[in-house]
C-alpha cells in the first residue's frame, strides 16, 4: 500500500485535530513508511483508517504506539558506555545526588544498563533514574524487566565488553556476575532483571514534541539515543532546547551513535563524540 504526500498530510491533520499528538515535524519518509506499515497491518484503506481513528480513541492510542519505533539493547554501543563509565559518570560522582533522564526509554534495556553500571560504580543509592516514553506499552514492558534470552545473546556480549573488559587495558578481565543483576532462565528462554533494579526507576508517559520537563528536577545526565532520528531538523532543535534548559551546569546529553546537534544551540555545548556537555566555558554566568 503506497502512501502519498497528500495521504500523509491527511493523517497528520486528522491526528492533530482529534488528539494532542502532532506528527507534523517528524522525518517525512520514515513516517510515510510507518503509516504504510500500519495501514497494511490493519488491512485498511486510508479513509476507512482515518474514520476509525476519529471514532475510536483506543485505536488512536494503539496507532500512535505502532507508528513510533522501539529498538533498544542492553548496553547498546559499548563504545558509548565506555565513555559513560570512564568519563561522564566519574565527573558526576562527587555530586550529592545524580539525576538521570532516559528520554525515550522504550522497553527499558538502556535504563537497566545504567542501573547496573551505577551499581558497579557504587553510585546506585545516590542516583535518581527517570524514564519516559510516548508509548505506555513499552513503559509497562520496562517495568516488568523481562527480555527474551536466545534472541538477545548480544546483550551478554555487550555486558562483558562494558563491565568485564577494560578498553584501556586489553586482556584485563574483571569478574562481574550476571546473577547479581538478572536471572537467566534457559528453559523459559527469558532474562529477568532483579527486583532491586526493577524498583528503582520513576516512569512517566511523555511526548518530547509537546510536553515540558516531565519531572521537577534538573538533570545531570540525559540519554536520548535513536529517538530524535524520527524528528526533522526543526523539531530536533526544539527538543535540544528542552534538554538544554533542564540540564545542570556541566551536565551532559548523550545522543545515539549517528545523531548530532546541527542547529545554533550546539554552540552552547562542548561536544565530544555523541556527548554534549553544558559547560561553563560556553555559558558564562
Amino acid at each position: 500500500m503506497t502512501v502519498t504526500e497528500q495521504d500523509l498530510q491527511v493523517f497528520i491533520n486528522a491526528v492533530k485535530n482529534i488528539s494532542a499528538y502532532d506528527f507534523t515535524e517528524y522525518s517525512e519518509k520514515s513516517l510515510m513508511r510507518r503509516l504504510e506499515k500500519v495501514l497494511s497491518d490493519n488491512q485498511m484503506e486510508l479513509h476507512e483508517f482515518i474514520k476509525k481513528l476519529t471514532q475510536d480513541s483506543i485505536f488512536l492510542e494503539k496507532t500512535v504506539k505502532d507508528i513510533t519505533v522501539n529498538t533498544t539493547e542492553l548496553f547498546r554501543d559499548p563504545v558509548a558506555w565506555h565513555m559513560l563509565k570512564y568519563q561522564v559518570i566519574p565527573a558526576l560522582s562527587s555530586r550529592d545526588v545524580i539525576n538521570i533522564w532516559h528520554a525515550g526509554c522504550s522497553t527499558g534495556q538502556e535504563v537497566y544498563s545504567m542501573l547496573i553500571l551505577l551499581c558497579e560504580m557504587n553510585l546506585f543509592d545516590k542516583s535518581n533514574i527517570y524514564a519516559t516514553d510516548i508509548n505506555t506499552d513499552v513503559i509497562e514492558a520496562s517495568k516488568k524487566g523481562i527480555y527474551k534470552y536466545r534472541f538477545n545473546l548480544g546483550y551478554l556480549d555487550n555486558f562483558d565488553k562494558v563491565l568485564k573488559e577494560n578498553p584501556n587495558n586489553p586482556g584485563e578481565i574483571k569478574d562481574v556476575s550476571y546473577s547479581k543483576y538478572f536471572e537467566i532462565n534457559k528453559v523459559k528462554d527469558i532474562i529477568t532483571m532483579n527486583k532491586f533494579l526493577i524498583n528503582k526507576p520513576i516512569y512517566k508517559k511523555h511526548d518530547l514534541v509537546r510536553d515540558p520537563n516531565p519531572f521537577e528536577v534538573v538533570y545531570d545526565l540525559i540519554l536520548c539515543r535513536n529517538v530524535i532520528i524520527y524528528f526533522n531538523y526543526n523539531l530536533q532543535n526544539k527538543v535540544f532546547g528542552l534538554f538544554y534548559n533542564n540540564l545542570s551546569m556541566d551536565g551532559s546529553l548523550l545522543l545515539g551513535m549517528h545523531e548530532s546537534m546541527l542547529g545554533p544551540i550546539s554552540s552552547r555545548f562542548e561536544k565530544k563524540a555523541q556527548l554534549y556537555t553544558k559547560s561553563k566555558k560556553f555559558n558564562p554566568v
Partner: protein
Amino acid sequence: MHKAIIIGGSAGSFQVVLRVLGNIPKNYPMPLFLCLHRLKHVREGFVEALSIKSSIPVVEPNDKDLIKPGIAYLAPSNYHMYIEPDYRIALSTEEPVNHSRPSIDISFTSAAYTYKSDLIGIILSGANKDGSLGLKAVADQGGITIVQDPIECQIRTMTESSIKTAKVDYIFSTDQIINFLGKLK
C-alpha cells in the same frame, strides 16, 4: 538541479564498489549513496576500507546531515538510511526489511521520491531480493536503472530479481558502470 546516484549491493558486491569508488572522478558533481548489506559484527572498519581506495570522501552520515555533491554516503551499520525531500539524510532503527538493516529498498524508494527522474539507481551482486522494489521505484519515478550483469556477479539472486521486477535501462559489467558514471555531468 539535483542529481544523485544510489548503489545497492550485498554478497559479492564489495570488490565492485571498491572499483567504482576508485574510478569515480574527483570533485564529482553529485552525491553517491551506498546501501550495502554487511555482517552485523562488521560495524567498524568498513568505511575505512572503502575510503582507502575511493577518489571521493566516503562517510557514514549522521542523521539530518545535509547532502552535498562529491561525497559518498554509506548507510551506517544497523540503521536504515532514508534520503529526505529536504535533501537531508534520515536514519532509522525500525525493524529489518527482507532481514536487512540497512534495507536497499528503503534507501532506493526514498531517494526515488526525493530525486524523481534525476536519480540513477544501480543494483549489484547479492544473495537476496532486497533492492528489487527499490529499483522499481526509481524506474517508476523516471530515473535511470542499471543492474550489474548477472553473468559477472558472484551471486546472482539480487540482480536477477531486480531484472524481473523493475524496468531496467542497462545491464552493465563493472567496467561499463565505471565508464557510465565517469561520463555523467
